[in-house]
């Protein structure tokens, strides 16, 4: 394929790259205790929250940025980032959608996430987070009738301080790593979900994260609690404008599943990946962990990662309850100069616990894609099982795939299975497809979608189609 047409395709491919022209209020770049105090004040937070933040900040100061992942990037200057940015129009907290700035609603329309009553996605409640704040949450009434709490994190801090105090930081401790300490100090907004005992959440819940402002970091925090015998399916989506500078996104997600509860957490991550020369794009450094605290509980992570310049994330499960189940289904696509180091951790503590890992890594262009996964079966986790399937697909000859499995089986009644394959889309395969009249892009898409089918099947139906389309766009021009 001629260079020109590749460039054209890549130029076209990120259709979420626009900026919304809203007046926003941003903190000047810089991080210190005053900034954190100002942030907390801005959000009118109770005292306990500020203390919690400052404690995290003090710890963060003692930490070094991790460098063990299979990724490379220039050092981040944390004093050069603004830690708060919000559209001004959102200042007096709109009470209903009618009061939300039309420009913001328009932004979500353009992103394919209409918020207003008429056009909403049927059966999906959306919390829309724009830079550091949540601008709207749909279907509030229907959810509250079922007893489900689904609101911006900053609202939950006021309305449900007891739940926050009880669960915040109990799955991902502040001190877990460099980025969790940073997030705990400066997190801006995110979603809070509580499903009461015995309730099956009547609809899909979804948060849509959008970075708009320049030079800001996004540090969201999501906390989902599924009380005994409850069920919830939650999905997050992410996009950002195209800019030449890199932007940092360091989120923390905590899930708690109590006895017999099930949480299904899906991610379609499509942050701006940077251009074909690796200029710009989001640094996606995220810590996600679920705690199967009760017996028979289940947490399932499904992720489709197509965006970001660098992805560093390992959605994990702590299988504490007996008979609890953890699952991780992942498709990670890297093209051009993108880098991804992603995978999962399954920590088996309870007896008869079970985990399944299916990871599909796709590399094209000059991209690097690494799977890193830990399976640890503790001595007391008798009769536990893990099955890991880890497949890589290479498109072209300048990209790389790497697999780093860490396996620790500490009792003899448990079984750990690991399978890995690497395959390549070859010129011969493409020639064969073309001889049958199928164009190169279509051929690549068909092969890739076949490769990912197992994971797509796990996504909520509303999003499976979107994910497939997204993947096709991400790989446009992948074969040179």
């Amino acid at each position, binding site marked *: 394929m001629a260079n020109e047409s590749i460039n054209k395709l890549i130029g076209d491919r990120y259709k979420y790259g626009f900026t919304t022209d809203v007046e926003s209020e941003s903190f000047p770049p810089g991080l210190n205790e005053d900034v954190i105090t100002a942030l907390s004040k801005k959000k009118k937070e109770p005292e306990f929250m500020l203390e919690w933040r400052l404690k995290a900040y003090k710890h963060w100061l003692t930490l070094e940025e991790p460098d063990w992942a299979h990724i490379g990037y220039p050092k981040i200057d944390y004093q050069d980032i603004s830690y708060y940015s919000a559209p001004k129009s959102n200042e007096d907290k709109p009470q209903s959608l009618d009061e939300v700035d039309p420009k913001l609603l328009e932004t979500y329309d353009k992103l394919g996430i209409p918020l207003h009553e008429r056009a909403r996605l049927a059966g999906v409640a959306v919390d829309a987070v724009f830079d550091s704040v949540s601008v709207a949450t749909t279907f509030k009434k229907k959810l509250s009738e079922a007893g489900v709490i689904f609101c911006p994190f900053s609202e939950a801090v006021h309305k449900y301080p007891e739940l926050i105090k009880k669960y915040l930081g109990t799955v991902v401790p502040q001190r877990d790593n460099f980025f969790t300490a940073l997030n705990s100090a400066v997190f801006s907004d995110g979603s809070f979900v509580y499903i009461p005992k015995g309730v099956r959440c009547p609809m899909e819940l979804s948060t849509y994260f959008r970075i708009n402002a320049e030079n800001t970091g996004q540090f969201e925090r999501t906390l989902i609690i599924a009380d005994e015998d409850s069920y919830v399916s939650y999905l997050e989506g992410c996009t950002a404008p195209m800019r030449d500078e890199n932007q940092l996104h360091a989120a923390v997600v905590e899930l708690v599943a109590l006895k017999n509860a099930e949480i299904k957490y899906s991610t379609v991550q499509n942050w701006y990946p940077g251009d074909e020369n690796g200029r710009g794009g989001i640094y996606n450094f995220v810590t996600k962990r679920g705690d199967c605290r009760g017996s028979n509980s289940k947490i399932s992570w499904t992720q489709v990662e197509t965006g970001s310049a660098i992805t560093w994330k390992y959605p994990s499960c702590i299988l504490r309850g007996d008979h609890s189940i953890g699952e991780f289904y992942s498709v990670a696509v890297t093209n051009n100069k993108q880098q991804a180091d992603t995978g999962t951790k399954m920590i088996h503590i309870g007896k008869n616990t079970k985990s399944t890992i299916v990871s599909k890594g796709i590399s094209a262009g000059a991209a690097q894609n690494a799977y890193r996964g830990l399976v640890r079966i503790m001595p007391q986790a008798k009769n536990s099982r893990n099955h890991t399937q880890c497949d890589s697909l290479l498109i072209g000859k300048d990209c790389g795939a790497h697999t780093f499995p860490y396996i620790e089986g500490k009792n003899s009644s448990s079984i750990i299975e690991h399978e890995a394959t690497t*395959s390549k889309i070859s010129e*011969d*395969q493409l020639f*064969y497809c073309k*001889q*049958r*009249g*199928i164009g190169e892009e279509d051929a690549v898409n*068909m*092969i890739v979608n076949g490769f990912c089918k197992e994971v797509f099947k796990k996504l909520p139906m509303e999003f499976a189609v979107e994910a497939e389309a997204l993947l096709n766009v991400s790989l446009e021009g992948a074969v040179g």
Partner: protein
Amino acid sequence: MLNIKNIHTSINETKILNGLSLEISPGEVHAIMGPNGSGKSTLAKVLAGQDDCEVTEGEIQYKGENLLDLSIEERSREGIFVGFQYPVEIPGLNNSQFLRASINAKRKHKEEEEMSAVDFLKLARETIEKLEIPQTFLNRGVNEGFSGGEKKRNEIFQMTMLNPEIAILDETDSGLDIDALKIVAKGVNEFKSESKAIILITHYQRLLDYIEPDYVHVLSNGKIIESGDKSLAQRLEQTGYKDDGE
């Protein structure tokens, strides 16, 4: 319909075809024989348009147009089908999904309506049954794990489904057991018509007992050194290429 005039091609700067000419009209069956490495598969690849095969001299007319101006996909959609000597495996890509995409790519090109999944499945089931291929093949990956003979039968299956105007079958008979050979020959004979042309590349007279050629050509060192009717094939079977044509 197809007029190959004095073509020269090279792969990685090695000359492979050296002034090959061949004219084919609708309704005709041409058999091409010749020693290993003489350039038979290269000819098939040149007709398909594979990028590695550079045509340095000569021209090819197809249905009155310059074939070399068309991309690989366009040639296919315009009715050129190549049954490969070594069909490639595409694991994970479902056979029937692949074939339906192929049929619809052609239909789209011809500005015809796409074939629905239901119609496709009906046609696929009927065709596959005629070729005595197990139905389960439809749901497997393209050629994935197929035996040598199964791959060849799959090529004929695809040919039948796509219904091209000219079929170039590169050693479709090699690796087939005697029953499979008969089935494949039957498939090709059913495909044969007034309006279609067939090029059979083969090493064995045996195939020509089932599919009767109008012409037999001997390819050696990248050009056709002798042409005749089917008796030429019979002679070659006895004498081999060594004493021939020199």
